[in-house]
């Protein structure tokens, strides 16, 4: 079985073994074992829901400390457009970008610039009839991973274009090398990230063997330092080179609107995304050409590593975009090749299938149905599995026992007690 890297990790000492994350995980990837939450690696899509719902802050995401940038001669920040929605009364992106320079970066390439290139590349590929419709956006890595493990028939509909983060890193590297002639390995590119799924994407990309990004720093992590630096700025440098299309990618619908067509759908929030994918798979959604899906409510501004309420951030992004030009970045068709995925998205059946052998799987399912029928159906989570059916599945996989169900155990103990006391 393929082992995945995950950016979502558990702080063991903070976890009290409650069922909050267990019940909210959209792929049923969490089990409570010995009083602590465990993540089933092959099912986790790094959406960050568990980080969001944990009242004990026992779940967190790997994010590089700012000092890590000092390992490189040239330190490059590629900020997600969601960063721009985090500040009160911001009217100029350059304040944020100059702030990034003053906390240690040497060079900035906004991801919103690359987003404009990706939008144009998508329109170009549609024009060339090179995409399968309905086209599903590949920008949210949690969604791409979800499709990979759960929606086999949709893998070919996922747009084989790199996400703006990756394109930004490639473009920044090229610009710096052209300008300075410095060695590629001396350039450290850091994504200022709103979510853990992007951290995972950098460490183990869906689309290629290696990412052009060196690390990801959470927006929430550099926020205090960055706002302090922004307050102290004497001079604001003209660094921004984004239009309203690129900045709009921060919120749900931004990418879809940039298709400049009207047959699109934009869904956000992981449960809504799953519902749309189910309907797409059954071909119930017709007359839609482009499907934008964001795991977080509101889009990237709803990422679990942001600081501001997503709807406040969304409103700010709308205001910021008001007087911006439509797009400031235009695709050189010769670059289309380097923006395409290296590897095709292929379905990984191992995450949910009971066995690779159909005969064995059928045997297990028969057993599973019997066990599931014998469980109380309360889905209480006390056994450590999110539902009774999930416990039945764990049992047939050999990872749990029927007496993990406290209701079954109680019945057993009651029977023993009745037997012992029947003679009295």
């Amino acid at each position, binding site marked *: 079985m393929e082992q995945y890297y995950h950016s979502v990790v558990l702080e063991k000492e903070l976890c009290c073994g409650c069922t909050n994350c267990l019940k909210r995980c959209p792929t049923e990837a969490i089990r409570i074992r010995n009083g602590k939450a465990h993540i089933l690696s092959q099912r986790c899509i790094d959406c960050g829901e568990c980080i969001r719902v944990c009242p004990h802050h026992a779940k967190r995401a790997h994010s590089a400390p700012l000092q890590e940038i000092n390992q490189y001669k040239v330190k490059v920040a590629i900020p997600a457009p969601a960063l721009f929605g985090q500040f009160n009364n911001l009217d100029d992106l350059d304040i944020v970008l100059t702030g990034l320079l003053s906390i240690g970066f040497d060079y900035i390439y906004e991801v919103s610039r690359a987003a404009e290139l990706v939008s144009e590349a998508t329109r170009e590929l549609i024009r060339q009839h090179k995409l399968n419709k309905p086209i599903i956006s590949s920008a949210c890595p949690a969604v791409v991973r979800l499709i990979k493990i759960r929606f*086999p*028939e949709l893998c070919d509909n996922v747009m084989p274009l790199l996400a703006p983060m990756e394109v930004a890193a490639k473009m920044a590297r090229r610009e710096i090398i052209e300008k300075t002639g410095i060695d590629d390995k001396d350039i450290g590119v850091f994504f200022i990230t709103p979510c853990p799924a992007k951290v995972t994407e950098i460490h183990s990309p869906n689309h290629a063997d290696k990412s052009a990004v060196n690390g990801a720093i959470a927006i929430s992590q550099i926020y205090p330092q960055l706002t302090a630096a922004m307050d102290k700025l004497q001079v604001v440098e003209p660094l921004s080179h984004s239009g309203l299309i690129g900045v709009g990618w921060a919120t749900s619908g931004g990418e879809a609107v940039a298709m400049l067509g009207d047959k699109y759908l934009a869904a956000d929030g992981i449960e809504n995304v799953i519902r749309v994918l189910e309907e797409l*798979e*059954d071909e119930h959604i017709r007359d839609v050409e482009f499907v934008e899906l964001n795991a977080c409510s509101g889009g990237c501004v709803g990422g679990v590593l942001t600081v501001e309420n997503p709807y406040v951030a969304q409103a700010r992004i709308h205001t910021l975009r008001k007087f911006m030009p439509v797009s400031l970045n235009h695709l050189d068709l010769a670059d289309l090749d380097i923006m395409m995925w290296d590897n095709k998205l292929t379905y990984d059946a191992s995450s949910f*299938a*009971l066995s*690779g052998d*159909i*005969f064995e799987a059928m045997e297990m399912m028969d057993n599973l149905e019997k066990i599931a029928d014998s469980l109380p159906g309360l889905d209480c989570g006390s056994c450590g599995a999110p539902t009774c059916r999930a416990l039945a599945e764990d049992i047939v996989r050999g990872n749990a026992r029927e007496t993990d169900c406290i209701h079954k155990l109680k019945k057993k103990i009651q029977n023993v007690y009745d037997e012992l006391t029947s003679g009295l």
Partner: protein
Amino acid sequence: MSSIHLHYDVSGEDFTRAGEASGLVKKRLKALGYNTDAIRRVAIAMYEAEINMVIHADGGFVDIDIYPDKVEILLSDRGPGIPDVDKAMQAGFSTAPDNVRNLGFGAGMGLPNIKKYTDDMKIDTELGVGTKLYLTVRVNEA
């Protein structure tokens, strides 16, 4: 283990629940690691048939037998029966009422679509007694 049998009651009372059974069957097939093309065809054909059963026959039962190489689906209802099967099979022919047409159903593609996505389809229908729809989807190893 030669087959897995699943049985669902399809309620005719709540239209918004139509499609639930086909969704559950799809989940089971994925858990079996079943051929993905066959899963898709089963899900679409069964969904269409389930909708038909709710619109025209006040619900009924679905019995599914999953074999390693094929899925057999039997949908039985005690509805009014189909007066003219050949006509019902024509693309675009529909007797669905307006209220479901407004939801995007009743385009007269139900039975033609079911035929398209299945390998075998048989209709036993009797006016005033009900309809049995037998469907088979085979695994085509590419």
